[in-house]
């Protein structure tokens, strides 16, 4: 065994010891390495994601939702599916060892909402103000 191999094996043991207290996104709960449990988690995530995707594609073709409400329904399904992906595929949880990841995610979501919401709001407002006075109001 070369020196490098010994060092890597040592690093691996050290990481395993230290990692009992912290998790990274994408990592199963460090205390539970059961593979069957992992497969079950991914299967649940896959089933929920398929359900939400099928609903997203199917709902607009039916009369179940009031026409103008369809975009709202689609956005709700999309946000739900992103949540499913975050929990079951990226393993972002509410446990204390995940606090750093959740806080970073919360900050990212804040910026995303500011950028998209702010742009849409400002541009809609500008379009409204740029309308000719005598033109019929079309929103």
């Amino acid at each position, binding site marked *: 065994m070369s020196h490098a191999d010994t060092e890597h094996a040592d690093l691996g043991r050290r990481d395993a010891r*230290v990692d009992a207290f912290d998790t*990274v996104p994408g990592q199963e709960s460090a205390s539970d390495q059961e593979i069957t449990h992992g497969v079950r988690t991914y299967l649940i995530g896959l089933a929920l994601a398929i359900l939400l995707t099928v609903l997203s594609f199917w709902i607009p073709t039916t009369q179940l939702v009031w026409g103008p409400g369809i975009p709202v329904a689609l956005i709700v399904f999309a946000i739900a599916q992103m949540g499913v992906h975050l929990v079951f595929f990226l393993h972002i949880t509410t446990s204390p060892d995940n606090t750093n990841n959740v806080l970073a995610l919360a900050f990212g979501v804040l910026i995303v909402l500011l950028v998209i919401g*702010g742009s849409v709001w400002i541009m809609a407002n500008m379009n409204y103000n740029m309308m000719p006075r005598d033109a019929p109001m079309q929103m």
Partner: protein
Amino acid sequence: MTAADISAADPHWIGHGAHAATGHGAGGPASKRIIVGYGFWIFLLSDIVMFSAFFAAYAVLRDATAGGPGGAELFNLHNTALQTACLLASSFACGLASLAVQARHGGWYYVTMTITFVLGAAFIVLEAREFADLVARGAGPTRSAFLSAFFTLVGCHGLHVTCGLLWLLTMMAQAFAKGFRPDILRRFLCFSLFWHALDIIWVALFTVVYLMGVHA
């Protein structure tokens, strides 16, 4: 070097954190795996912030079709559904690959990574065909502001997936050449995070661009 020697030379264990650290702030930094994963998570979030700017541009320019075709005439939802299925199954296969890595099982690793690659490549082929079809119908990125925003947003995601496919092949080659070493495991962790994040962005894409473009 014993613990007493370290404590004498470095009372707060700042330079020796990983030997005693819990990652809770006391005792020094967390392990390299935690730090690498967290850093890559920050990168992914900033990548998502970049995508949000493209989404904002698309949302603002959605109706700026300059007399050209809009989303309802252009998009084929069967193609989009097929792409969605490919990418979701690919993300699932990548999850199974990370379980194979946890179990240090080489055979399953190569099988699941190959499935991940094939499904991801199918996604890219479907997207390339869609783009070629749009351009052939005179609805290329130069036709209207709406189509410029569409090609930028969807093309940027496609570019990410293409880079991810190259990264995937690299990870298979590195696992083959170097085995499941700690540094290779960290790289694989980053790759799997990247691949799952691309699927999350695709969820927003097929909802906002394709479904809302056709139905709303």
